[in-house]
């Protein structure tokens, strides 16, 4: 029964928003905004809170079992400290909340990302081999791009830069466009199947 109601709700919201896409009537636009803001945004925001609670429950479970206890405790302290700081001092200007963002979160987050530079360099040495003709083409395109997008313009002939721009704008773009069209058609059919109730995996397994 519950699954049937969920399917009907899914169809109703899907069909409604699909229809509203084509209407310019003020009443239709008002309804569109109401669905977007009052339902989609609010429910989604609460769903994010569910995700946070799920993380807390999982971490707490690990602490009780003793799995990586010190690290899990640090995670929970980090998580708990942010709302506490926000409640006491607010989140704007030079608040401790913003301090945590700027001097704890940003440096670590961007450094984690910077680690990838080293792994890319390592992969270039170990895995980037011209084993076949397509692999050689991939390698040539990568080297051409690297040459053209550095600032070695005095050393590298202008021809390389022009060739790299042409490659990116034509054959490379064409492949990306084909991927885009493929994804577009796939998303289109999946959306239709979801609204029409043919695709029901999102409802879960249990009856």
């Amino acid at each position, binding site marked *: 029964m519950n699954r049937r109601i969920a399917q009907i709700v899914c169809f109703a919201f899907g069909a409604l928003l699909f229809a509203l896409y084509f209407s310019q009537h003020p009443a239709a636009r008002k309804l569109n905004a109401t669905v977007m803001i009052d339902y989609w945004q609010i429910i989604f925001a609460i769903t994010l809170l569910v995700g946070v609670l799920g993380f807390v429950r999982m971490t707490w479970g690990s602490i009780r079992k003793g799995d990586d206890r010190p690290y899990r405790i640090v995670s929970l302290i980090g998580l708990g400290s942010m709302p506490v700081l926000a409640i006491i001092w607010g989140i704007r200007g030079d608040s401790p909340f913003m301090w945590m963002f700027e001097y704890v979160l940003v440096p670590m987050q961007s450094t984690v990302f910077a680690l990838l530079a080293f792994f890319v360099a390592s992969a270039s040495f170990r895995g980037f081999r011209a084993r076949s003709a397509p692999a050689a083409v991939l390698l040539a395109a990568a080297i051409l791009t690297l040459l053209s997008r550095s600032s070695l313009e005095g050393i590298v002939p202008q021809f390389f830069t022009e060739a790299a721009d042409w490659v990116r704008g034509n054959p490379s773009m064409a492949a*990306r466009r084909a991927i885009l069209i493929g994804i577009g058609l796939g998303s289109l059919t999946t959306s239709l199947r979801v609204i029409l109730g043919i695709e029901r995996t999102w409802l879960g397994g249990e009856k």
Partner: protein
Amino acid sequence: MKQIESRHWIFGGLFVIVIITMVLNINLEVRVTPETDRFYACLDSLPAGATVIVSFDHEASSLPEIRPLALAVLRHAFSRDLKLVGTALLAEGTAVGYRLMTQTADEYGKTYGEDYVYLGFKPQYIAAILSMGESIPDTYPEDYLGQPYRDYEMLVDVENYDDIAAVISIADGSLTTHWIEYGASRYNIRIVAAVTAAMMTTYDPYLASGQLYAMFGGLRGATEYEQLIGIGGSGKRGMLAQSAAHVYVMVLIIAGNIIYFRTRRRKGSAS
């Protein structure tokens, strides 16, 4: 103690090269590419007083690359006396966007509420983009500072995208795609993007089809833009290191291939 492996030498080499080139502190001039020029011309052609949305659609992880791009664009926009409305489609971009906007506004003597307003974050980016097309004040009843939207004089006539000259999406992922597919397609808003280098090829088909009006990106793009507006920044400072790192990766690729082919030939002659 674990032994030093070959990857450690590769890591160390990259570290040394970047540090040395950064310490040398040499600013390189670069050729301005047509794509950066088109972005610049787009902002430059907007009349003073036109309202532009600057959307910080990125996370904190890409800040080292995004920051020079965002600063260059914001400096250009403020110098052109455009009215800026800041938004964020990702939570981490929210605080970053506010900091960058206020910092740049101070450089140009701009006043919050008169020259720019920061609206902040809304989750579910598709819903946020589409609902702003219907009503920006309904989507953002309050700004980031908690003040009602209607209190700001510069926003009195800004109801939806009809009152916006362009959207500048500063992104490190696929969020610009949603601006194009939902904002541009449904509401005919002009979208321009400043993106990380890794995302540039992703947006090429939209740029070629005209759905994305202009795009530039990466540290190299930031350097080009800094050159166009005549203000040096961290983009310019990092270009020597960037070039050296590119050469290092190319050398690694070539060295890896030489070793591979020599080993293959040796194995071939042995058998």
